[in-house]
């Protein structure tokens, strides 16, 4: 019997109150692959990630993470949000932010030990922030903060990394370096990566697959195929690459 995929989503329906956001989404992400979840604003990308994290309960459909239910702590998921906003000047250090990634493993009432701090130092080195451990998180640039949040996800020793528009508001060069780092970590740690983003160009360089979501899955395949699809043009309401009849 073959191993289950890292992520299995079948006929997933989810609604906030009565407004359906996900309407029968179906796709899988294979273990060790890098899949990018793309789609216009309101397509349900962040909602889908929250379902996979176990923060939202699906209305109907099947959702599995490594063959188990979402939110099962025996299969840790690393999560990188769009941004962490602290009150201005709050003196939280980079190391303290990363250490939070161990709290789920530690459990309630248990204090971090030396081994946890070693994990933090190693993770910071891995994301190229080893020298910044004692700096204030709020003093870092947006790109550096996102690297720190990757380190926070890594110290939880995840098998799956979920990223929710992690490069929103960052300049193109920083975005490119960020995704190159994610790709390196995917290969060096054998991670499965699912990243929700609008960065079509840069993601197409690193991701194995693009999953175009707009309530349901409109296209799913290698970047070269999805980027050329009419479904992408319809979802983002821009002319298809070879559709010369369309008026911009």
């Amino acid at each position, binding site marked *: 019997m073959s191993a289950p995929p890292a992520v299995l989503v079948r006929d997933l329906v989810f609604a906030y109150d009565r407004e359906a956001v996900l309407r029968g989404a179906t796709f899988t992400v294979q273990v060790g692959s890098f899949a990018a979840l793309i789609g216009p604003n309101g397509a349900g990308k962040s909602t889908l990630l*929250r379902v996979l*994290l*176990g*923060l939202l309960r699906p209305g109907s459909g099947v959702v599995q993470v490594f063959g188990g239910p979402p*939110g099962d*702590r025996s299969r840790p*998921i690393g*999560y990188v*949000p769009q941004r*962490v906003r*602290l*009150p201005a*000047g*709050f*003196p*939280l*250090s980079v190391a*303290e*932010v990363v250490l*939070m*990634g161990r*709290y*789920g493993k*530690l459990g*309630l*009432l248990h*204090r*971090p030990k030396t081994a946890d701090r070693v994990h933090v130092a190693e993770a910071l080195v891995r994301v190229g922030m080893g020298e910044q451990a004692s700096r*204030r998180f709020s003093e870092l640039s947006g790109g550096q903060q996102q690297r720190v949040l990757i380190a*926070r996800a890594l110290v*939880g020793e995840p098998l799956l990394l979920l990223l929710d528009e992690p490069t929103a508001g960052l300049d193109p060069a920083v975005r490119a370096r960020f995704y190159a780092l994610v790709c390196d970590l995917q290969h060096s740690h054998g991670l499965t990566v699912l990243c929700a983003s609008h960065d079509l160009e840069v993601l197409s360089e690193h991701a194995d697959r693009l999953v175009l979501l707009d309530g349901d899955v409109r296209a799913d395949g290698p970047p070269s195929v999805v980027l050329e699809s009419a479904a992408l043009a319809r979802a983002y309401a821009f002319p298809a690459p070879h559709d010369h009849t369309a008026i911009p």
Partner: protein
Amino acid sequence: MTDFLAYGFVQRALITGALLGVSCAVLAFFVVLRRMAFIGVGISHAALGGVALGVVLGISPMLAATVFSVGVAWVIGWIAAHGRISEDTAIGVFFPTAMALGVALISLSPTYRQDLMGYLFGNILSIRPADVWILAALAAVSLGILALFFKEFLFLGVDEEAARAAGIPAEALRYLLLTVLAVTVVASMKLVGIVLMSAFLVIPAATGQAVARSTHGMLTVAVVSSLVSVVGGLWLSWLWNLPSGASIVLLAAALFFAAFLAGRRRGR
């Protein structure tokens, strides 16, 4: 100063004030981190409604204020999490409503008006010997809860979604923090007063933030400045016959401005 320390009511106020000052300072750390300053205002003012209810119902005003404030805190927390209105709007509804209830009920009980100023602005004379143990126990329990769940409250304050994804019980801990906030507010009511209590839930942490370079430093400065404010404020209150709440908060504010200027000078 030795005259000051010789009085029993001063000793009682100092003991309870020091304990409550420490728990308020640690609580203020989370109030600032979670941007809960307005909820502190709401809960402290709601306590007046609880005091008035206690008077009208003939039960302990402190007990009634505790139950009432915890109830208001939970309702605000529930509405903020599940309702269709924002947290600040919910506080904006409950804060004046509870206060208006308090004023209306107290106006029906004319004999009680003499104590009102004490509840509003603090009065160290109002701390009876029997109160010391109760207030000390409340402060110790609050402090114990904050210490036990410090890392969880910190994670939730920084990134609630990631904390929930890591299995931190966000909902339960939110209500626990609101309960600690409400209980601490009521416990500190006689010392600082309802009107000025919210300042005491922000200023010590703001003082720490102004000069500290780490969260531990911020907490240490917050606790020390809170203790200095309580002890110094009580002394000034005795010296100049001021309401204790006003002198404590004024001293806390003076320490904040000094810390703010010191922080700016060294480019923090």
